[in-house]
């Protein structure tokens, strides 16, 4: 345990902390970050394994999948449901929002912890509970819920239809608990960022990643409510026998869809914004350039957040809503592509005139931009109502959202981890392994999902365990493309071993990182690597914005925020 004599730390009477208190019961935001991060990564392994299993079944129907066995139709539905649910709620959210939010916010605004450390700890504990509840659903009678991560009733509301009486309710419970955990976490992020900034740090001196995580938290807190209400109603339909979503009892299945997507759409921006924020930090550091048009970036993020409340029914164009409503949602959906496009343009503009080093974090950050562009443009096909009639529920949709979610959850995470690893652990990561890992992830990634765009355009619909039942989708080249995607997935999954090996050997024998190995401006790089409990030997004062790189007339090409001159 670090001992630090500092006049600013009124609470420092240090005693040897037991392992349990230090790692399991800690209120330190950095430890809570690791708790969320490791849980999220563990769940990613599970979600990734599931994708391997169901892709094997799709590409080679009836095969006995190595490490799993035969995949029944019911299990297939359970696997795809769990994959989607896990990746969004138990990987993207905890890693991008909770882990990076917890780590970066206090450090980057120059304070010693979150304002409500005990609530912070509670948020992880609730999250951990939600994880246990979800995982338990795999072991109950009937198996895990298999009605897709969107859980549309009446299928999800009635065990007579879904055959997973316990799994369906455990799923709802787990998701509801996860929401509570993030509401608790969000309170900390927002209030800490608003109130605990270092002296001198104006709103426009806050690093973009902090702003974006805070905006994401605000978005989450203002949008999840209706779905919590919906989850309560769904749970009651399942367990108490109410008929909120049962047409025979005056209920409406489409109501769930509205409640779900009213949250579901802002949710994608909740996870997107932190990833974009991480990308922004890395691009500025490794091109030694000020972020282009900081204020514009901020306004577009806020605009995106506000607009995200107006687009939800583009998921429901053909769901039986009044067809006239489709016009409104096509317009709002296409409109929302504009601020996001603008953000991508800003990153590209930041590269102009830069001095670019293609370090591993920079490779990931650039890959985010390059790949997310594909996700973004393919969304237009789906937001345009007339085109969506054809594309709805095809693999085109799936490929679109993997070209957005994969950059968000996977590329964004690796970007952030490879960048802040030296700060978190005091050691540099191995750059060679890092680059091998990068290329062996990115290249196969494209070979998984480009075939799926083609298959979707050729009519292949989603959530089908055996395309041999559909003559028009059983042709040789259809299966060839499915096999290509599946082989690429296997290569990509195996490549992740390189990352874990890198983490292991770097932790044990990586080069010791100093405070600021990348010569960055933001405050976290002014603390020790790793920062002790309390973060800073002396809490910093801020004199300028976070992106004063390559300022003309200065000897160094960077200018930390807390340097007096």
């Amino acid at each position, binding site marked *: 345990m670090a001992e630090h004599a500092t006049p600013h730390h009124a609470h420092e009477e240090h005693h040897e902390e037991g392992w349990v208190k230090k790692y399991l019961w800690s209120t330190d935001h950095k430890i809570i970050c690791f708790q969320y991060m490791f849980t999220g990564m563990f769940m990613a392994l599970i979600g990734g394994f599931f994708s391997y299993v169901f892709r094997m079944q799709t590409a080679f129907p009836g095969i006995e999948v190595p490490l799993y066995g035969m995949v029944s139709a019911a299990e297939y539905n359970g696997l795809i449901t769990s994959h989607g649910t896990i990746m969004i709620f138990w990987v993207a959210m905890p890693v991008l929002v909770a882990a990076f939010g917890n780590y970066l916010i206090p450090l980057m605004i120059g304070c010693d912890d979150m304002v409500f450390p005990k609530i912070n700890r509670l948020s992880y504990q609730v999250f951990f509970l939600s994880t246990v509840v979800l995982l338990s659903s795999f072991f109950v009678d009937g198996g895990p819920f298999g009605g897709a991560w969107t859980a549309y009733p009446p299928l999800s509301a009635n065990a007579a*239809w879904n055959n997973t009486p316990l799994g369906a309710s455990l799923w709802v419970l787990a998701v509801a608990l996860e929401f509570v955990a993030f509401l608790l976490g969000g309170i900390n992020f927002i209030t800490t960022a608003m109130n605990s900034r270092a002296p001198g740090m104006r709103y426009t001196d806050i690093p973009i990643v902090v702003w974006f995580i805070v905006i994401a938290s605000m978005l989450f807190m203002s949008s999840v409510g209706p779905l919590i209400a919906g989850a309560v109603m769904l749970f009651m339909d399942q367990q108490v026998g109410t008929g909120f979503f049962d*047409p025979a009892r005056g209920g409406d299945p489409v109501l769930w869809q509205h409640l779900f997507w009213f949250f579901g759409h802002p949710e994608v921006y909740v996870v997107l914004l932190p990833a974009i924020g991480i990308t922004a930090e890395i691009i500025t550091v490794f091109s030694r*350039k000020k972020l282009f048009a900081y204020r514009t970036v901020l306004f577009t993020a806020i605009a995106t957040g506000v607009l995200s409340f107006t687009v939800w029914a583009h998921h429901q164009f053909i769901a039986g809503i009044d067809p006239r409503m489709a016009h409104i949602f096509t317009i709002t959906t296409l409109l929302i592509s504009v601020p996001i496009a603008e953000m991508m343009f800003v990153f590209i503009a930041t590269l102009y005139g830069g001095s670019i080093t293609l370090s591993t974090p920079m490779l990931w950050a650039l890959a985010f931009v390059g790949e997310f562009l594909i996700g973004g443009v393919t969304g237009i096909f789906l937001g345009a109502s007339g085109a969506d009639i054809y594309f709805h529920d095809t693999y085109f949709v799936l490929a679109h959202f993997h070209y957005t979610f994969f950059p968000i959850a996977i590329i964004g995470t690796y970007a952030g981890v490879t960048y802040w690893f030296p700060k978190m652990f005091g050691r540099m990561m191995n750059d060679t392994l890092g680059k091998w890992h990068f290329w062996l992830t990115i290249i196969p990634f494209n070979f998984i999902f480009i075939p799926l765009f083609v298959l979707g355009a050729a009519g292949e619909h989603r959530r089908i365990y055996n395309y041999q039942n559909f003559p028009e989708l059983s042709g040789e080249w259809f299966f060839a493309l499915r096999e290509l995607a599946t082989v690429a997935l296997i290569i990509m999954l195996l490549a992740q071993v390189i990352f874990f090996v890198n983490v292991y050997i770097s932790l044990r024998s990586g080069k010791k990182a100093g405070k600021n190995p990348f010569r960055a401006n933001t405050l976290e790089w002014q603390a020790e690597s790793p920062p002790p409990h309390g973060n800073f030997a002396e809490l910093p004062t801020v004199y300028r914005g976070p992106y004063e790189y390559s300022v003309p007339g200065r000897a160094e090409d960077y200018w930390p925020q807390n340097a007096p001159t």
Partner: protein
Amino acid sequence: MIERWVVQGSTYAADIDGIIWLIAVLVGFWFLVAEGVFFWLIVKFRARDGQRAQYITGEEAKQKRFIAWPHYLVLVCDVFIVVGAVRVWVEVKQSLPSEAEAQRVRVISQQWAWSFVHPGADGKLESADDIRTVDELHIEVGQKYIYELESRDVLHSFSVPVFRLKQDAVPGRVITGWFEATVTGTYDIQCVEICGIGHGMMAARIVIESPEQHAAWIASHSAAQLAARTR
């Protein structure tokens, strides 16, 4: 573009393919420009010994232009796309042929099969000579149809790729829409809303027949004919 892989089998299939093509051209253009500039900048501004990066805030108007102009152009493209999409949407989802020119057909979805009710020789549904089938929909090419889509249990969704048509089936409601086939042949019908364990088995076929073939099919399903076959 879609027609490379899937036959255009309805009167509106070409329009749907057309809006998809328009979007592909416009977003394809922007995509290539953005990625092109992106990669060019990465190469052009690689770190070089002794050379420092420039200090550009992006706050001055002449710098902001480079973001503002593309973003206004994107907006203009969006307008074209919206207009195109709305026109197709109105054609497919907000119009119905008149009763006089259309036949009706009922599409019933359930866990896990499709059943169809066709009007018999009298051309009317809900009459004694209606023909009920499972997993096979028989229609006449060049004839407008109004479909009445129902579900007996959970959400399903009626999808005919050659028509480019999709419509969710909601229990407790009858949802109507229309189509008119332009080619003959037998094609896939899919269920495109996950509906339980058997969702992947919910395949049906649409049999699009010439007027003579269709008349013959109806005739072979008259009560007398069926009785003869079941003796």
